[in-house]
């Protein structure tokens, strides 16, 4: 059943593509990515596994346009992301980020944190509120909207980060160890929610994780070694 679903999705159009991506630091002294090729189709869930420092986070940052690559090409929906003029559109409409640390603004409420991307994208207030309530309901946070971030539990914070990432209806969700700071039980619950929502929203998920049990629940599991990707 899962296989047929994956195969069906694989026939869909490619939304994220990396070709021969190289990235190094310290003027080339530390090569992190060495000619990475990658493709993700619409609605797929993909786990990137590998030891610390193998380049998982770097690859996610390049996918989201947060970092610049040395060589190669990354494109989202056929549009190259390494060109500055595409960057804002990419961050506002095409990709959403979830980090290991929730990266929420502590002095704002859950609602205000979630509305930040809509402010950046210029979404009108009514649509933004409707979208917020839809996502808050899906993530079970409807009753916590007015709470400040300090008063939320770790799981709630990560669910808030998920809501924020999806506010502008991105096509791709880039998650960097999204459950890495949570205990096992909360981690499982948050990840189940993550999969449920991306499936419901039709979002492509690319997730960096050390947790192989979580990775196994994705459509594809990619191993990263020494700056390259192997598909298992």
């Amino acid at each position: 059943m899962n296989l047929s679903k994956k195969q069906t999705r694989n026939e869909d159009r490619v939304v994220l593509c990396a070709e021969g991506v190289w990235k190094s630091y310290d003027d080339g002294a530390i090569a992190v990515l060495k000619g990475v090729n990658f493709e993700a189709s619409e609605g797929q869930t993909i786990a990137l596994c590998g030891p610390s420092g193998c380049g998982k986070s770097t690859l996610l940052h390049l996918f989201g346009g947060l970092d610049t690559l040395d060589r190669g090409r990354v494109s989202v929906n056929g549009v190259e992301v390494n060109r500055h003029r595409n960057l804002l559109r990419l961050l506002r409409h095409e990709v959403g980020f979830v980090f290991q640390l929730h990266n929420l603004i502590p002095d704002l409420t859950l609602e205000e944190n979630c509305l930040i991307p809509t402010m950046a994208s210029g979404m009108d207030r009514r649509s933004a509120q409707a979208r917020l309530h839809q996502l808050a309901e899906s993530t079970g946070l409807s009753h916590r909207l007015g709470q400040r971030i300090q008063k939320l539990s770790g799981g709630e914070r990560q669910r808030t980060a998920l809501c924020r990432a999806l506010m502008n209806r991105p096509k791709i969700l880039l998650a960097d160890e999204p459950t890495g700071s949570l205990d096992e039980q909360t981690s499982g619950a948050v990840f189940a929610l993550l999969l449920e929502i991306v499936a419901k929203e039709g979002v492509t998920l690319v997730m960096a994780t050390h947790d192989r049990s979580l990775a196994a629940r994705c459509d594809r599991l990619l191993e990263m070694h020494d700056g390259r990707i192997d598909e298992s």
Partner: protein
Amino acid sequence: MIFLKLIVTNLRRHRIRSFISIAGIAFSVAAMLTVVTVLQGAIGMFSGILSSDSEIIVFERNVSDLFFSNVPAAALEEISRWPMVAHADPVLFGIVSSSDHPIITCFGVTADDARIRKAAWIAGDKLTFAQHSDDVVLGERAAEFLGTKLGDRVPIGHGIFHVIGILKTANGFEDGGVFMPLSSAQTFFHKEGNSSVITIKLRNKDDAELFKHTVKTRFSTLIGLEDAEFTRSYSQFKILKATAWAVGGCGLLLGGFGVANTMIMSVFTRIREIAILRVCGFSNIQIAAMIFGESAVITLLGAMLGLLIGTSLLYALKLVPALHGYVDVTLQPAVSLTVILMALITGLAGALYPAAYAMRVRAVEALRFE
């Protein structure tokens, strides 16, 4: 709304730092407002002396100070005969001193002068003015600080004068001044036959241009200016105004440095937050607007507090007996607006570098900070 909260949140987060910045701007604005208002008040009062019941002032062309101006009696006689002139009053300005008071303004005027005719005499009779060469009339405050009363003989400068009247006037210079008959003043100041200025009252105000033109053609060494023109162009006033604005501007500049320092600290301490906003799709302009907004809030709060402090300070100065009549505390809207605008510009200028720094923050690097 959230944008505003993002701005205010950071100010609330660092309350003491924000307060110090606001206080810096407030005291700068208060200083500027006080200095400018006091000087403008002084200028206004001096203009008031000149424009008392007149529209035009005639004085010596190209003099740096009216105390050095010499208008010959022949010019006064001729001007008085011009049909457009209702009356022409010569005034001789001089500075005298007495024990304990190094500077007392002295006005040599005729008995017909509006300053004498229209003033409220609290002692003496205005009809007795200029009957004797050693007669003087004192302003109320001058009488007070000279410790003299009607009928006393009072040493002023190198002479002894007889006080024949004390008058009350709202103008600080006049209130602290000494009025002498013109001829006595001319002798006292060694300016026989001359006055410092002639103040002119026209029969018809519309003749002002004609009058000025006639003065220009008839007397090559004299110039006639309408009161407003004189206030604008008199070099002493210009120097005073420029000094006031420069002193105030320096104060404001210091306040601006305070804002700049606060904003730099603000950006440094919220780099991670700026990175999050970037990841959420904030543009450079939106990031910069947030920093400028924060600076604008500090500056506006500081300016309002400064207005309050400045106004209180001016009222406090007005209550000081020694300054009675010298400080005009009327807060001019144009001055207040200019000061607020200058404060705002200074605050925004102080946020330029922090905003530029914030715009250069790279999300990927900032998010690596733990």
